[in-house]
């Protein structure tokens, strides 16, 4: 939003038409990061096609309508883009005041998952049933609210000019803000989201300029925690199996290793140019489970080949690169932290999601940002894009 000008005497700046305001050199639209938007849109288009390809034959899922998933996906996408626009319109500064409320709501939603309102999918109780076949995954929103909440606390004194770096007390508070929802998500259990949150917390601490001791300490604590979780047997069997299958891909290719094995066959068999959209035998044959959500990248790998799958990597790279740039160029520590947190979120989630289909990461239930089918994830990703855009557009322009 640019400053409003009023003409009282006819000599001042003339009241501009809406179109003029949108296209003006200093308008919000003009100042948005269009590289990121175009890359995001391209990912959304490719994602829609891949979701369609993965689901048009799945009669047991799509209720006989080949476009069932496609239409829903596009609907979610449009809602997501609307949410982005709303976020830009509100502006991240105005949202800053609402962060405690948003944070509280998201944690409450997450807690609801643990009540009978929650739905269990693939061994993980991570969904809230809204009725009518709609579910939401509060963990996705928590990624945003944890970033915002921590950023608010950590940047408060620095942005006010009181200190150069956050003090220890603030860092402890910020970690507490992250720890509460992480504990709730751990109980679901949604290990993938916990992993993403750990990475987000690390990036937020780094970007906030907190003491190195905190960063190193957190890494150590994470390692010790992981060992403890393993030793105390807090993991479910399916989670242990996923790691076992990751460590040894040849293990039980019909059982625990089936997913990764079939995913790798799908991607590997795509070759350089792929088998052509809708022509993947692994995809049409439905050999890869969860192919429209967590394993959507296998469709790209098989049907579009190295060229198409590589393009997805490049587009993700463009989005993340521009987000990094926004983080570096932003004027307040708060917006820097928010941008850096989103960078870490997108980057790690994409790496984990694609990495597991390529067999270099263990399987964890995480969607591929911009591409995978799934409403909540789509909304969260586009809200995050809205935050980034708003950070960029609300930056004062040099005269």
């Amino acid at each position, binding site marked *: 939003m640019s400053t409003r000008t009023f003409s009282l005497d006819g000599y001042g700046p003339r009241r501009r038409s809406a179109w003029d305001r949108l296209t003006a050199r200093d308008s919000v639209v003009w100042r948005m990061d269009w590289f990121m938007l175009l890359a995001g849109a391209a990912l959304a288009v490719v994602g829609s096609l891949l979701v369609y390809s993965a689901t048009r*034959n799945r009669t047991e899922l799509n209720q006989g309508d080949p476009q069932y998933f496609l239409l829903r996906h596009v609907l979610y996408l449009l809602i997501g883009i609307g949410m982005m626009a709303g976020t830009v319109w509100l502006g991240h500064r105005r949202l800053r005041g609402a962060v405690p409320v948003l944070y509280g709501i998201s944690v409450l939603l997450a807690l609801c998952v643990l009540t009978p309102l929650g739905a269990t999918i693939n061994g993980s109780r991570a969904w809230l049933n809204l009725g009518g076949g709609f579910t939401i995954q509060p963990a996705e929103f928590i990624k945003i609210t944890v970033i915002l909440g921590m950023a608010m606390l950590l940047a408060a004194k620095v942005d006010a000019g009181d200190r*150069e*770096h956050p003090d220890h007390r603030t860092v402890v508070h910020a970690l507490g803000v992250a720890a509460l929802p992480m504990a709730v998500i751990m109980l679901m259990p949604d290990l993938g989201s916990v992993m993403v949150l750990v990475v987000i917390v690390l*990036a937020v601490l*780094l*970007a*906030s*300029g907190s003491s190195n001791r905190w960063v190193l300490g957190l890494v150590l604590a994470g390692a010790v925690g992981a060992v403890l979780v393993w030793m105390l047997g807090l993991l479910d069997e399916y989670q242990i199996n996923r790691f076992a299958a990751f460590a040894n891909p040849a293990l039980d*290719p*019909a059982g625990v290793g089936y997913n990764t094995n*079939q995913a*790798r*066959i*799908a*991607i*590997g*068999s*795509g*070759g*350089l140019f792929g088998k052509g959209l809708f022509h993947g*035998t*692994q995809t*049409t*044959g*439905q*050999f890869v489970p969860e192919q429209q959500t967590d394993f959507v990248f296998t469709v790209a*790998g*098989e049907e579009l*080949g*190295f060229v198409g*799958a*590589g393009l997805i*990597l490049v587009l*993700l*790279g463009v989005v*993340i*690169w521009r987000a*990094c740039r926004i*983080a*570096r*160029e*932003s*004027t*307040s*520590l708060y917006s*820097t932290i928010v941008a*850096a947190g989103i*960078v*870490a979120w997108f*980057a790690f989630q*994409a*790496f984990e999601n*694609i*990495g597991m289909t*390529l*067999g*270099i990461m263990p399987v964890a239930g995480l969607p591929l940002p911009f591409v995978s089918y799934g409403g909540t994830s789509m909304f969260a990703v586009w809200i995050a894009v809205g935050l980034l855009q708003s950070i960029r557009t609300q*930056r*004062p322009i*040099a005269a």
Partner: protein
Amino acid sequence: MSNIPETGRSSRVTIRLVAIQILVMSLLLTLGGRLWYLQVRNGDEYQKEAKGNHVQQVVDPAVRGSILDARGVPIADNETRLVVSVSRTEMMKQDDEGKAVLERLARVLGMSPKTVKEKVRLCDAKTPQPCWNGSPYQPIPVTDDAKPQQAMQIRERSEDFPGVTAEPAAVRRYPAPYGANTAQALGYLSPVTDEEIEKAKDTDSPFLPADEVGRSGLERTYDSKLRGSAGVTRYEVDNLGRVMGRADSDKAKPGDNLVTSLDSRVQAVTEKQLDQAMKAARHEFDKNTGRNYKADAGAAVVMENKTGRVVAMASNPEYDPNAWVGGISGKEYAKLTGKKSNYPLLNRSIQGLSAPGSIFKVISTSAAVKAGYPFDGNYDCSSSYEVGGQVFKNFESKGYGNIDLGRALEVSCDTVFYDLAYKEWKKDGGNMPKKGAKDWFYKMAHEFGLGKKTGVDLPNEVSGRVPDRRWKKEYWEANKDAWCKQGKDGGDSYAAKIAKENCVSGMKMRAGDSINYSIGQGDTLVTPVQMATIYSALANGGTLYDPTLGKAIVSADGKSVKEIEPQPHGRLPLSKKTLAQMDKALQGVATRGSAAWRFGQAGWPQDKIKMRAKTGTAEVAGKQTTSWLATYTDDFTIVMTISQGGTGSGASGPAVRKIYDALYGVGGGGGIDKKKALLPKPEAGLPKISKDGNIEAQLDKDSPGDSAKPKDVPEDATQDVPGDGRRQPPGTRREDEGPPQPPQGEAQQPAAYRPGEDSRQTGRGAAARNAFLALAHDSGQRRYPGGERR
């Protein structure tokens, strides 16, 4: 944005942001690298895997080629039978694990539910027969002779019979035309084993799990030709096995047909006559053992002289080759291979071993001639022959005075050969053999092809033995320890004395050995087919042919006809003159010698069809004598042998004569009725092959198997033969060569019978396997019932 406003941000944050950016971008690069590695570098490998993933194969087995006789009459072909199979996987899916379905099926098939259940249970260590020991994912045949009505019931009420199929399938059949069983020469099939599939995986003729493989006889020798190649229909399927499309498929290529030189009519007569002769011998009293002859085994070969082609090959005891069809039951298998079975699976024509007796004398005669003794010289045929205080009897117990070698053959005079063999033995150095000893008698046996395989186109032929010096030495080395021990421990018994003697000098060729050897007794072992090859060679001017049953391989469409040419493997080292002299002498045997009472003096039209013969009676320690009769005309050679059957002309004579009668149409009074003649001349050509590849069978209206049925068991078969019943001279060592011993090898242990062996397939996910089964059922493909039933 060139001028960044001052944010008041510390440089620490800036540096960290750059670090984050580098880290994040390197993560994406890692993904890109891995993507390249999977898709570009290893893409081919994964493409192959993906193909295997989504393509399921339905095997359409090739129709196995037929085996036909020389006139195109099928002796092994296929018939379509209704096979009812049960898919275990489908059964296990049902709530009661298929119990209700199997019970319904039993009712429809008229079997007891217990029998059906036993047939479809899997073999394991705890499950007794009957059980299924094929792949648990292969449909299990419950019966292969369902009636059309039963199959209809199963098909029409398919909702009552999930997982049950009733489909026509080609099943091997041995129709035995004219009653010619031909079992051992034909062989049999049994399902392929996992090891064989693995072994043949990368060869030109890989096996399919449902394949049956020839295990013996012609079925084995010509297996790769007969089998053809199975067709494979490839379907693209999804992960649940639902068919999504068809991939490129190979059509089944039916196997080639094999035309043999066998004549089913002659084969039938030969089998019948051999059997009759053995039965007759069992009524015959054996003076030497004080009981009737056992006649426990026999063999007969009818061979074309000028080609070595086999017209008939019989081996007794017989069995029904159809017992193998559709999988042999454990009980039947025991009947064919158990200790009490007398091993009917053996083809005694090529696997039966025995000393040849006097039919060996043609070789001794040849050796004598080669050693420089003139054929028409004068040799003393005394009634006995003494060497070193040991008396060797002339078993005819009759002296003929001075006779030539021809006459010695005619009257089968032993002493003439004793003397010649002894002289040669002495010439070669006696007990202290000279270097470069001539050993004519032994050399000649080798040159006649004894001691090695004839190369007949049947598997597991045995080579027999020529007991020459080398063999003696090897045999002694293998046995001396046992002999010496027995000689030491045995005290004064007769056996111990012999063992002691063997221990000391068993490696030596002793005079007695050579003397016995010269009349075909002792350690010599021959097969009937070897002797047939030798007598054929005497008839054809000296060429030893590889005996062959296969005459031509005809492709299923009839477009390719590959004749199997006769192959010689040697020549008799005899001059034309000697051959002619020998031939005349053998005619003499048939007209006035030891076989005359079966031919020349029994109305044989010798002026029209010249008959040559040689009788033999081989000694076997501890058993009754082996009867040998080797005969030939201008075109055919017939050799017959009966273990523990008596004398050559006595036991085998009438049977051989009857076979000749049938071949040439010789009537009771010696008249020749050409219309009744089955095969007065060898069948030179091939049966007519029509344009569509059908081989036309030339069938006779009335089965000669019946017409040639002996009207009466010839009484003269029980007559005693003058001068041909010998005993073993005392003091000569005899090794028990016994009746044809089961040779080592696969003939005895058909590889397919693997009780209790679990041949589970390893493979992809269970879903894919189930998918294949579901698919195979849906597609209604014909499947070859390869499984063993029990």
